[in-house]
């Protein structure tokens, strides 16, 4: 489907059963469909454009009961070639609060649907793994945190009062699994990898099933970092406080979240952000990409046992942090965005600082990288390791450098231009070998491209205002804001409430999609390669865990869902 005109898309969607197709803002189509016709619509779309033509970005569950409605589900599908986001709006069946699951058709929707199940109690009929994702296994039934009748600040300890269970009893780790294979039941030993394993800096939990040195399967049981942000945004926070909340989703790619949120609100409300502000946002976004990729190189080298590489990369990166501090007032958490523009300017002196930094970083980075590629022991450990085929990447909805290393040429800066990216040409780095080495090469090329882009932005930045005047936000408008974070597509969906509040905010970070590819990549690999494979997707666990999680109430052991994992892929 090559850049189909809007007219064709609307016709197509209507012919596939959509009740109404409208354009809430540029780059998006709002498609209302009855729940009965949802699977047919998705199937028809897939038939027309193929698995690589449409990506499932995220799904948003909304408690619309106070609005005289039932629960709503918004599926955000990205049609990269057509430069459109489809917002498929479905109202749940009122009697059962259910919608049909589209995971059987689009596996990438798996986690997003489960999240809506967990937090809102919407049933997704036909979902192959209708199990808890965010909340602990023994979370009390019938209590759904994102429902409008649940108060955001009722602490878990209050909820559990009188239940007789200490809320800080550690969960027991299952050490042995019984797995049904063709020859009958086979016992496997699992190696718990986390939550505080030295290779990881975050408290995340991977369960890796091994037979000797070979990985049979893996399971990710994370979401330790849920802080209840989505609920907070709907309740205590105002529209202009949320950029600061969004920036703290992740301390590495925070600014991209702040931008995506502001873009979503600005799109929903039809706010025209001044061009100079767009350029400033773009410059800072690329500076963030620089720091993030250099950080990643350091961590990757460290995980490979090459600490000199870690030190060298973080030494080079220090320059970037100092420049960020000079531009924004802090090394990280730039705090530059408000809805409608930016808070600070980049004057001539600051621009000169940036350019000097870019020259130094480019020279030193290129030099060091070429040295490491000449080191056989580094290359051998990453060539052919952790393969994610192009087909799997497309099926699971992988994004960012991870997807581009598997041959998929997708990049939000090109496919859904935002900020000032529409005014420049971005060279997208793509590799075909689908292994860890490919991911290294892609990120190397992206660092150089970022440097080039910042220079171009600084040269072409126009004079003008920094903030839109008269920011007015009408109620109940939907907006989709997407950015290309260092890890991939970052999508924020906002439903406005009018005035100073939002009705719903759904941030979906890129690692959410990429983490789902880890089991596929780990199968058949040596145990020793597990850390570098996980590190190669540049996992940002805090981005993935922006919603709330609560502790278990009883000490009951969870029945393994291994069968479901083995069935996948």
């Amino acid at each position, binding site marked *: 489907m090559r850049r189909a005109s809007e007219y064709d898309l609307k016709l197509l969607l209507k012919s596939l059963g959509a009740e109404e197709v409208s354009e809430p803002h540029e780059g998006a189509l709002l498609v209302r469909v009855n729940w009965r016709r949802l699977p047919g619509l998705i199937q028809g779309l897939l038939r027309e454009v193929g698995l690589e033509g449409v990506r499932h970005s995220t799904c948003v569950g909304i408690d619309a009961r106070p609005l005289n409605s039932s629960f709503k589900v918004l599926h955000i599908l990205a049609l990269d070639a057509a430069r459109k986001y489809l917002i498929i709006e479905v109202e749940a069946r009122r009697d059962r609060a259910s919608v049909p699951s589209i995971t059987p058709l689009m596996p990438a929707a798996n986690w997003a649907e489960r999240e809506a199940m967990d937090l809102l109690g919407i049933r997704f009929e036909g979902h192959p793994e209708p199990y808890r994702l965010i909340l*602990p296994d023994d979370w009390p039934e019938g209590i759904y*945190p994102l429902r409008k009748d649940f*108060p*955001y*600040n*009722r*602490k*878990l*300890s*209050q*909820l559990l009062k009188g239940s007789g269970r*200490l*809320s*800080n*009893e*550690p*969960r027991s780790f299952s050490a042995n699994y019984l797995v049904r294979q063709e020859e009958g039941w086979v016992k496997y030993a699992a190696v718990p990898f986390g*939550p*505080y394993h030295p290779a990881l*800096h*975050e*408290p995340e939990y991977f369960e890796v099933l091994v037979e000797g040195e070979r990985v049979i399967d893996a399971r990710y049981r994370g*979401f*330790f*970092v*849920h*802080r*209840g*942000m989505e*609920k*907070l945004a709907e309740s*205590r926070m105002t529209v202009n406080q949320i950029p*600061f*909340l969004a920036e*703290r*989703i*992740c*301390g*590495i790619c*925070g600014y991209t979240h702040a931008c995506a949120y502001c873009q979503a609100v600005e799109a929903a409300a039809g706010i025209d952000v001044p061009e100079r502000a767009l350029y400033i946002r773009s410059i800072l976004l690329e500076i963030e990409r620089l720091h993030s990729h250099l*950080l990643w190189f*350091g961590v990757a080298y460290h995980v490979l046992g090459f600490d000199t590489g*870690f*030190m060298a990369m*973080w*030494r080079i990166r*220090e320059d970037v*942090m100092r420049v960020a501090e000079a531009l924004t007032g*802090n*090394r*990280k*958490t730039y705090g530059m965005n408000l809805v409608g523009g930016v808070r600070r300017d980049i004057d001539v002196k600051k621009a000169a600082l940036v350019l000097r930094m870019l020259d130094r970083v480019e020279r030193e980075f290129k030099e060091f990288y070429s040295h490491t590629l000449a080191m056989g022991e580094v290359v051998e450990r990453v060539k052919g390791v952790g393969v994610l085929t192009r087909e799997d990447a497309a099926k699971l909805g992988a994004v960012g450098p991870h997807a581009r290393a598997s041959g998929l040429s997708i990049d939000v800066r090109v496919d859904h231009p935002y900020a000032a990216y529409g005014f420049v040409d971005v060279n997208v780095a793509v590799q075909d070998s689908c292994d860890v080495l490919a991911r290294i090469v892609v990120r190397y090329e992206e660092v150089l491209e970022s440097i080039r882009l910042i220079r171009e932005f600084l040269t072409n930045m126009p004079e003008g205002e920094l903030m839109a005047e008269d920011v007015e936000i009408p109620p109940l408008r939907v907006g989709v804001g997407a950015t290309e974070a260092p890890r991939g597509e970052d999508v924020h969906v906002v439903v406005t409430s009018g005035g100073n509040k939002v009705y719903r905010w759904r941030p979906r970070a890129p690692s959410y999609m990429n983490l789902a590819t880890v089991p596929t990549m780990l199968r058949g690999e040596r145990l020793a390669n597990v850390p570098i494979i996980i590190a190669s997707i540049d996992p*940002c*666990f*805090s981005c993935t*865990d922006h919603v*709330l*999680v*609560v*502790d278990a109430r009883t000490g009951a052991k969870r029945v393994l869902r291994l069968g479901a994992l083995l069935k996948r892929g």
Partner: protein
Amino acid sequence: MAGSKPWFFRSTWVFHLNSGSCNGCDIEVLNMFAPTQDVERLGVKLVGSPLHADVVVFTGPVTYQALPYVVEALKAVPEPKAVVACGSCACGGGIWHDSYNVVGGVNALYEILESQGIPKPTTIYVPGCPPKPEAIMYGVLLARGLAEQRQRREVFVEEVPEGLAIPEGVEGLEEVVAKAVKAFRYGGR
């Protein structure tokens, strides 16, 4: 603790504990070990197990899911120990301090520990979001007794002035109100 005889008779071994933070503070903690800051020249070393630690650098607001592991990790650190609560989340619960799945930073965590009979450990609070690597370094040195604390509580109490009645020269209230109402009703004096 600060300024007194150092209680560790060797270098400071640090265990980094993330209780659900956004990673901002964690990256700055790691940055301390990078060449520009190089905290290792001050004898500070990162260890992989809480059992080897003198100081726990604590980040995050403590989510309920991380709570059991955090308690276990803290219990495992042998005395004498200090906790460096790093960042807005650890010091005060952070921007989401009242969210219901957030325990609320180290002080709320200590309440839970105390209810289990575990005494509150010596704590150094390092504000920031995230704090600079140098600020965290300063905090670790404070824990070690090698730096002086600069931050102090500040209280200002305004002096109560003589008499709070309406000052001289202002007309009586009844006349004022009557005039105001007349102006409002009839659009003029």
